[in-house]
């Protein structure tokens, strides 16, 4: 109904900053295209070389299998934790998505430190049984295993929220028409879960395509690892740029499919007005197998990696690892993530405001461009900025501001999303009421809008802080020389197979990045 023309003030306060930020996000991508365009013919023929095709094949192959295994784990888990009467249901519901807080390189490190050639199990077996070689875990199996363990919660959460919204009367209708619970699930419920499974799967695919840490530690040559090796060994920038563009094209395609499928899912769901909670189905004799299933998931994804981590921390302490380095790295990590979260949130506010309050073609375009970041792997952004920095603004090359800018490019959409959601929950009449009571627009923002979006801002801050803390590839490439963060600490130690040295920073990353998550989960429920 509203057709407010943008006032002059809003142009300066909202529109111009939004446009500038959007252009900033596009910068790395534009620069990559220019680099690739400048490349000589050799670099282009590289596109069709068998090694490139093989890399593409490996990357897709890994993404497909991780997704399939994730669905297999997530579907029963989602159903059990929403619709069954499994004992300790709430506990399973809280524990099962937790692997999301484990960064992929930490997960991979924990796997290698346990089952790898110099790992815990190997040492134990060698000592007691004299077995000197375990089956190889590097390569595809290890990458598949660790990425599945870390990313299945995307599908789990997506299916869970969809299961909670299924209209219970559809199920009742199916039962009254003579189908039993099992038939009802496959005929009525499962078809409605398809959009959720698709959305979750595409998130998993994006996770795999963008992952750098796990595939590098598992030594499986997907795009991100090959690009990094190219960058490190040859400094052949055009080749790295072209490989990056291939990867980004792939992720953009996935992102577009995800957007389209999500929009359709919303339409499919909109006609259900029923707010009754879905009925709980008793498990009967299936109770025990279900309990065993849930416990083994939690044991494999949380308890084993967790105790393994603590084992290495203790060994590190015994071996006399220096704590001093750790303290500095912690400060650096918190400083960089904190600064990034503040910066990104400030950048997100004007974009969120125009997309909620001034919906039009331009604001839609701006918002969609920010979502492009979801398609940009950290390594790609980092490389683009390294090239750009060293060529044009060498003062910024390997400086903290450039690193923060990379974080902005990578994580802006998360902040825009959470600010936007909380803005949407505010009744626009509130702002009009305040205007009619004599308040200028700025005072309205200060007295009404801001206090009401504050929880959203806090959530956005937590989210960005958490993801930035875990970020590895951009941090690795862009951080100033000598600027060690926790993530870099883990990476350096693992690269040289100092498992005990990697343990303490890994534990700290998980602990610090869990704090905002815990705060968000246990924050006092909003009364209004």
């Amino acid at each position, binding site marked *: 109904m509203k*057709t407010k023309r943008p006032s002059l003030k809003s142009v300066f306060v909202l529109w111009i900053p939004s446009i500038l930020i959007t252009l900033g996000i596009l910068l790395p991508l534009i620069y990559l295209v220019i680099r690739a365009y400048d490349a000589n013919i050799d670099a282009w023929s590289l596109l069709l070389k068998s090694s490139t095709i093989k890399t593409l094949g490996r990357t897709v192959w890994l993404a497909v299998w991780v997704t399939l295994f994730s669905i297999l784990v997530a579907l029963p888990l989602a159903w059990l934790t929403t619709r069954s009467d499994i004992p300790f249901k709430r506990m399973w519901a809280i524990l099962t998505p937790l692997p999301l807080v484990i960064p992929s390189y930490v997960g991979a490190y924990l796997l290698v430190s346990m089952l790898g050639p110099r790992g815990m199990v190997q040492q134990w077996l060698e000592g007691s049984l004299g077995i000197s070689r375990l089956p190889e875990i590097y390569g595809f199996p290890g990458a598949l295993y660790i990425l599945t363990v870390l990313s299945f919660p995307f599908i789990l959460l997506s299916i869970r929220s969809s299961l909670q919204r299924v209209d219970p009367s559809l199920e009742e209708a199916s039962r009254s028409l003579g189908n039993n619970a099992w038939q009802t699930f496959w005929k009525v419920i499962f078809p409605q879960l398809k959009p959720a499974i698709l959305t979750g799967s595409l998130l998993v695919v994006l996770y795999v395509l963008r992952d750098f840490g796990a595939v590098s530690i598992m030594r499986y040559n997907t795009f991100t690892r090959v690009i990094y090796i190219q960058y490190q060994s040859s400094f052949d920038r055009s080749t790295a740029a072209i490989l990056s563009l291939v990867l980004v094209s792939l992720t953009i395609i996935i992102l577009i499919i995800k957007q389209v499928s999500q929009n359709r899912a919303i339409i499919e769901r909109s006609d259900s007005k029923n707010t009754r909670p879905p009925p709980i189905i008793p498990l009967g004799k299936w109770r025990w197998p279900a309990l065993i299933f849930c416990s083994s998931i939690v044991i494999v994804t949380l308890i084993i990696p967790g105790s393994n981590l603590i084992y290495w921390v203790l060994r590190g302490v015994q071996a006399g690892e220096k704590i001093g380095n750790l303290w500095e790295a912690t400060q650096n990590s918190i400083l960089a993530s904190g600064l990034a979260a503040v910066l990104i949130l400030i950048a997100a506010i004007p974009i969120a405001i125009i997309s909620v309050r001034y919906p039009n073609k331009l604001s839609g375009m701006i918002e969609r461009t920010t979502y492009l970041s979801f398609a940009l792997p950290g390594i790609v952004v980092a490389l683009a900025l390294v090239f750009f920095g060293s060529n044009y603004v060498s003062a910024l090359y390997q400086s903290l501001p450039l690193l923060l800018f990379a974080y902005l490019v990578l994580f802006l959409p998360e902040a825009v999303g959470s600010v936007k959601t909380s803005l949407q929950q505010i009744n626009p009449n*509130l702002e*009009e*009421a*305040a205007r*009619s*009571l*004599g308040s200028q627009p700025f005072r309205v923002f200060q007295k*009404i809008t801001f206090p009401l979006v504050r929880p959203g801002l806090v959530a956005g801050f937590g989210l960005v802080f958490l993801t930035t803390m875990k970020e590895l590839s951009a941090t690795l490439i862009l951080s100033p020389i000598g600027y060690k963060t926790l993530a870099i600490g883990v990476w350096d130690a693992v690269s040289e197979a100092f498992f005990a040295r990697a343990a303490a920073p890994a534990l700290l990353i998980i602990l610090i990045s869990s704090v905002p998550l815990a705060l968000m989960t246990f924050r006092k429920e909003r009364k*209004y």
Partner: protein
Amino acid sequence: MQQYSVITENLNKSFDVDSVLKNLDLKIIKGEIMAIVGPSGCGKTTTLRLIAGFEQPDKGKIILGDTIVADEKTFLPPEKRGVGMVFQDFALFPHLTVAENISFGIKSKDKEKIREEVDSLLELVALNNLGDRFPHELSGGQRQRVSLARALAPKPDLILMDEPFSNIDADTRLIIREEVRKILKKLKTTAIFVTHDQEEALFMGDRLAVMNEGELEQIGTPENVFQQPKSRFVAEFMGNTDFIPGVISKKGIKTEIGELEQRINLPIGTKIDIAVRFDDLKLKKSKKPNAIVLARHFKGSMNIYRLQLPSGNILHAYAKHTKTIELGKFVKVKLDPGHDLACFIGEKAL
């Protein structure tokens, strides 16, 4: 000379290509309650939003008191207009207490004075002692009263109310309605009140403005609008109206249910339509019936019968709650208004 609180001249507004308001001329007298009534999409809410300053007119002029607040050159933002607004969903600030909500628009810096004013407003809307509550702790009717008190707090020259009672339970609505009217009259505040409920408009308004498709159909006192509708639309919208054809005769108007003694300056034989309200008819059992009973709505305190005439025309008539006639029975229906009936040629009233 009349003192006007609001004057709109030739007001036009469209959204995209939909023209929502067409050349609206409205004059609201100082101190009166104007009820704007019409079906949804008739432009009544847009009129309110234009006066409040939430929308900018495409064309036309709005004058509040003696200030032009909107025309081709001027556009005064809502905060400079001194207009209070009561929203359909109340729009109470959820993070502020009742007292903080009410004091939001009070300009004074003197804390003691603000407290006094808030207290007297709370008393005015009969919510003493609820100042420390939060909006979500109040009932619908209480929120409505807070929202009114908040709008009144800056002492505006004009209060705008957009369907203010539609979110309140039916049983409290009548009481709240009466209270609000009493408060507005006590303070002698000018108010514009928008509703789609004609009964509410008849009760609330000192005058009524009936709107349809962005245009003003009729403006006048409730009695005037109800009894002398200027168009078929108004007659139908104000409710309980059927139309039957009639022909001008020597004595008055001839219809298929009897002759009406009502003088109309038209040549004999002219065909017209007569608006017949439910209470203008009398039902009788008779040996010479002229209608069949199609349906009966038992309303508790009365019956409403739906009748079909031999010509096929449908009429509704009130009858006493004790008067039960079976469906399909034949009855005699007679015109017995006791006052002149509104007559139409085409859409326009005579």
